[in-house]
């Protein structure tokens, strides 16, 4: 479905995840973060950059993997993105929701 955000139209699924990463910009990421009550700090961006890098490498994401990333530990990940961190972070990053149970 189409969603209007900061004056641009993006294609999202029913949970609000972007269907086309090519439509994503940093400004859209910031707006999506604000919708989730998160104001992005440089630490948030380091995590989002990492998540997008893994997505581009076709490498599946999990909480365990985030913890081993060397970018952020699991405790801080939950502090940066409270309430469903992996879902929230991937939504802001403009990539599909990870299917991992771990």
């Amino acid at each position: 479905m189409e969603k209007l955000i900061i004056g641009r139209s993006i294609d999202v699924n029913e949970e609000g995840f972007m269907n086309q990463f090519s439509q994503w910009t940093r400004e859209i990421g910031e707006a999506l973060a604000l919708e989730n009550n998160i104001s992005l700090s440089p630490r948030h961006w380091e995590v989002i950059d990492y998540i997008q890098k893994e997505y581009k490498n076709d490498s599946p994401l999990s909480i365990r993997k985030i913890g081993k990333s060397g970018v952020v530990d699991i405790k801080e990940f939950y502090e940066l993105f409270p309430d469903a961190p992996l879902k929230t972070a991937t939504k802001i990053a403009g990539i599909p929701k990870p299917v991992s149970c771990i």
Partner: protein
Amino acid sequence: MEDNGKIKKMMIILSKATLENVYACFVLANGARMEGIQAEIFFTFFGLEAIHRKKLEHLHIATVGNPAMHMPTMLGGLPGMEALATSMMKKEMEKLDIPPVGEFIEILSASGVKLWACKLAMDMFHYKEEDLIEELDGVLTVGDFYKQGSGVGTHMLFI
């Protein structure tokens, strides 16, 4: 109903220490946190072995009395059979990025899952707090555990 019956907190009671039960419990608790749901685990009876420093990396899956193993009960009871089945299962789990028990406990604790030991079971097995993992949040009575679970949207699960 308030919040359309949304699950806000999972209170999971783990009473067994066979590997498949421990993993079911840990995956459910971790999965709750991943969805923004609070989670607490109450380790009681044999479940205490999953948080016992010296025992947690030596848990086995049950090969006897487990029809889903599709092996005759007599075979399942042979020496080494549990260890064999366990090592096969551990290999499969590593492929799926499922961490070993000790690492899983670290992940749960870092994710904000509260880990409680049952006081009565500890007395029964003569365990002391120092026998258990350092991530432990405390030793509770059943009454304390129910108090922890109070509030709208709490669900309790017995494994």
